[in-house]
């Protein structure tokens, strides 16, 4: 067997240029290029330069080879074609000509080139249409859900209790640790904020007002809503999205069973029930966090703290928080289920749905919070 590094030498005589291939051809080594070799060979043999017709090969000294040789041969082939030389492969081993044949095979189907990207103006228009479509889809889904609840409450369809209890469990004991942690810290943060600001005016005592108002009216419901949007809303979207990919949703459709009745209603009802309960718990924990800071930082007694808090915070404040909780629960369930059912069919679609569900859920929660606060201020609740 020949050895040594890859080499190719071209000898031109009359109308034939024979490329002698020798040595071991490896992709790791520096490889000869065909065109400069041929140009050099023709320069040395000036008489052949005009008469050359055919490019041939002599592989008698060829050692081992890999794709590097094929690359060289394809270079020589395309150069020969561009110069209208005949490309004679009879001097090459059969295994190589077979691979060249495979590489030269024409794809059976002509691929249509992808359409050119639309112009800037068209992109704006398309984005507008897409936004409008998603609004229409949202309103349509809302309508379907309302119709579904109507069917459920008039007894036309049975309640799917199992799915309901799964949601209740996931958002009950399952959500308690994270809600505890966040609510406690939010209570602590509000109290610190109050302590820092109010103590400057010697009004540290009023920190209990701030904690009570802050947790019960706003932060308890808001933080729980955001936690549940990230936890459960994303979970709903991923769950329903996977069902779309595994054709489980199609299986409902071809039985004429509404996925809203079977999948969406129990999930939304589960959140509807659990959100207020979670918020009551979050309110309590948050107030305890605030109490801790008040006792440690401002030397208030527990009694002073609660007397102060209860002298201004009313039941209506807590009820407003609970009202918000039910609204947020509905929002999270709605956003999660809608994006889950609208999932595309590729693998990354489930992830996108879950993300969209969380983004939409949190956005709508904040908007709803602002609207409710504004109305509450208007009606002096």
């Amino acid at each position, binding site marked *: 067997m020949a050895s040594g590094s890859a080499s190719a030498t071209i000898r031109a005589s009359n109308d034939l240029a024979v490329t002698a291939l020798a040595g071991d051809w490896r992709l790791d080594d520096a490889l000869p290029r065909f065109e400069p070799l041929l140009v050099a060979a023709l320069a040395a043999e000036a008489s052949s330069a005009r008469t050359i017709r055919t490019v041939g090969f002599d592989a008698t000294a060829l050692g081992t080879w890999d794709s590097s040789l094929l690359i060289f041969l394809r270079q020589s082939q395309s150069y020969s074609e561009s110069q209208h030389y005949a490309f*004679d492969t009879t001097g090459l081993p059969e295994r190589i000509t*077979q691979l*060249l*044949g*495979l590489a030269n095979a024409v794809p*059976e189907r002509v691929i249509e080139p992808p359409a050119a990207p639309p112009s800037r103006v068209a992109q704006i228009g398309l984005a507008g249409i897409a936004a409008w479509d998603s609004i229409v889809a949202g309103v349509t889904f809302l309508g379907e859900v309302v119709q579904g609840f109507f069917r459920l409450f008039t007894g036309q369809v049975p309640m799917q209790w199992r799915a309901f209890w799964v949601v209740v469990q996931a958002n009950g004991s399952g959500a308690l640790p994270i809600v505890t942690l966040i609510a406690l810290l939010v209570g602590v943060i509000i109290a610190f904020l109050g302590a820092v600001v109010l103590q400057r005016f010697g009004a540290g005592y009023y920190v209990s007002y701030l904690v009570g108002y802050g947790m019960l009216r706003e932060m308890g419901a808001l933080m729980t809503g955001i936690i549940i949007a990230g936890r459960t809303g994303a979970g709903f979207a991923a769950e329903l999205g996977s069902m779309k990919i595994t054709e489980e949703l199609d299986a409902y*459709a071809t039985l004429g*069973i509404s996925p809203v009745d079977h999948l969406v209603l129990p999930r939304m009802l589960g959140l509807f029930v659990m959100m207020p309960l979670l918020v009551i718990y979050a309110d309590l924990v948050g107030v305890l966090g605030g109490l801790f800071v008040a006792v440690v930082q401002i030397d208030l007694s527990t009694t002073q703290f609660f007397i102060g808090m209860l002298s201004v915070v009313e039941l209506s404040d807590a009820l407003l928080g609970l009202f918000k909780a039910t609204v947020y629960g509905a929002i999270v369930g709605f956003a999660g289920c809608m994006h889950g059912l609208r999932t595309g069919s590729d693998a990354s679609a489930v992830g996108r749905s879950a993300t969209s569900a969380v983004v939409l859920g949190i956005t709508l929660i904040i908007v709803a919070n602002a609207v409710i606060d504004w109305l509450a201020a208007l009606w002096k609740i």
Partner: protein
Amino acid sequence: MEDLTPPVEVKNLTMQYESLVVMKDLTFTVNRGEVFVIMGGSGSGKSTLLKHLIGLKQSPPGAVRITGEDLSTADPAARKKVLRRIGVLYQNGALWSGLTLAENVALPLSELSELPEAAIAEVVALKLALVGLHGYGEFYPSQISGGMRKRAALARAIALDPDVLFFDEPSSGLDPISASRLDDLIIAIAASFGTTIVVVTHDLASIFRIADRAIFLDISKRTMTALGDPAELRDSPPNDEVRRFLTRDSGTSQEHLKSTP
């Protein structure tokens, strides 16, 4: 009284994805009680055609009729009536993963029939036994093998004794033994219940085994180019594409590879 409406009737159906026409001029009628195969290469729109047939994709009015009814224009009540008479076996079974096998089979019965609870349990036991899954009712889909999952899905598809059964690539992802077992079941159901069966597949062994008639979707011509008994189509192919499909011929012969490029 004998019902003479063909179970599946397709007239000049054009399938398109946005503005791109995938298949056009599809016209065929499936006869009562036969096993009808839709065959074609990957990307030829076989599964899309199935979606048109079972009403998951909107078809032009009048193009697709299932048991005489056009699902694209039917009102909800009529639509429900048709859906009650068809069964679908999806590619990977599509069993509802949150329900046990028994509950999967029971759901169509409890939703679409007036059967009392006890009768439903009996039907479920029978259907699971028919597909060889006696005693597996309390298992969840994730706890059984792919072949068993498909058979459980078949039990769900035949829960309501449908007039027409649709199969999407029944042998995909199955070993040869499981695949042929599913073929046996298809033949047995067609023969015993007189169910009309429409199968989308490109599995040649399965095609020759089960099909009474088949259509071939040719992706290069964007329409159907053959209709008939697959064995006859193989022996006297109407065109080269059908011959190559049915004889598993890639078109790149050894001769071609050796010849000087």
